[in-house]
């Protein structure tokens, strides 16, 4: 049951202020997004229309702490089809960015940030990998993690995803 006293009526405005979330209030709940969603086709845990509805109602806590917001595959099918130009893929990104600031980062993403910090990329390229490349006649690649580290610490993202898991 939804209790009106527990809703956060500013949530939709908060999302609209976040890059990518600007068009949330245009949604008229037609369900085009959900009907064509390839994730929804294999699991009913993800339902973009429902998530947008929850956000518009102000169910801030439920949305931000949910695991379903992370199930968007970012395929942009709904983005292209939405008759109201809600830009749902970007909207989901906006919601996830807020969730991260509130300490809700799924563990796999923390690992990815660690890898980027260490190697500048998601897959290490060390001696072993370079030997394989050279054997095939491909040029060696030198990791350049330092600059990536610098950028990650400038924005504070590494601290944000590491805290309050």
């Amino acid at each position, binding site marked *: 049951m939804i209790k009106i006293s527990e809703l956060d009526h500013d949530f939709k405005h908060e999302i609209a202020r976040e890059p990518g979330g600007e068009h949330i209030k245009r949604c008229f709940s037609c369900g085009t997004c959900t009907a064509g969603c390839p994730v929804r086709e294999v699991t009913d845990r993800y339902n973009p229309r429902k998530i947008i509805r929850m956000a518009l109602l102000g169910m801030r806590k439920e949305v931000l702490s949910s695991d379903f917001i992370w199930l968007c595959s970012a395929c942009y099918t709904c*983005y292209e089809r939405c008759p109201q130009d809600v830009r749902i893929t970007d909207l989901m990104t906006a919601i996830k960015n807020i969730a991260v600031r509130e300490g809700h980062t799924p563990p796999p993403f923390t690992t990815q940030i660690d890898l980027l910090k260490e190697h500048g990329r998601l897959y290490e*390229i060390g001696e072993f990998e370079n030997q*394989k490349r050279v054997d095939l006649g491909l040029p060696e690649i030198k990791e*350049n993690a330092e600059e990536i580290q610098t950028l990650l610490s400038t924005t504070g993202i590494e601290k944000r995803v590491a805290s309050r898991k």
Partner: protein
Amino acid sequence: MKYALFLGCTIPVRSLNYELSARRVAEALGIEFFDINGFECCGYPVKTLDQHTALLLAARNLCLAEERGLNICALCSACTGTLAEANRELRENPKLRSRVNNDLNATLGKSYRGTVEVKHFARVLFQDVGLEKIRERVHTDLSSLQLAAHYGCHYLKPSHIYDHIEDPEQPHTLDDLIEVTGAKSLVFEGRNRCCGGGVLAVDEAVALAMSREKLDRVVAAQAEAIVLICPFCDIMYEYSQRKIEKTFNTRYGLPVLYLPQLLGLAMGISPDDLAFRLNRIKTKDLLDKVTPPEET
């Protein structure tokens, strides 16, 4: 046709067959690739956590290409999308651009100017080289093959970052690039569907179920192989194929080819030079069918 080649994270470690075949085919078609040591993560995996950080990573790569005055050609569709989107946003939004440039300047002494373009390799083949020129180079007849084109998502969408150059509901460039070899590109239900790669890290079961659905449809259409242009899609359809077979108690044994492997084959480049031996699902039957025995 000179491009800075953007490999991203996955290809230079996990998709060497894609990289090698792309380089061979590019060379044969007069596309010159320049390797920039210093290209790192495009920013894609970070966007979901923090868009500003992702923009900085993307802009840093764009700056490196700008410093050399080269447009970027990317092999990975997610890299293409991320870099092209950042390029567009930074060009069109002066406020965003100055915020990004402030950070880039303070930390790395770099500044984004907006002077280069970003294109996917398949788009370079279609637009810059063109079907006619590729057709002239086709030596081996592949007309006995029936193939399933998998466009993936980020090669086409969001379409505004690519100036709506191709309708994502009715794409044709990958079909055209397959059919220029003589092979048939099949029409089948759900062909534009996502591979599921985007949710693999978060929920493997969901990702595998998405891929399974596509594999079922590809096999039902009697395709002999999937042809694709993105390493994430390959991780789903090729690396994960065994796992999907086990999970859903089924059997596909369906080869997965990268587009330049197919093109290279048609152009008479040897399967070895196209690194067919690195394909995890064996391609021997397919190669036997199109290559005279003494050349395999």
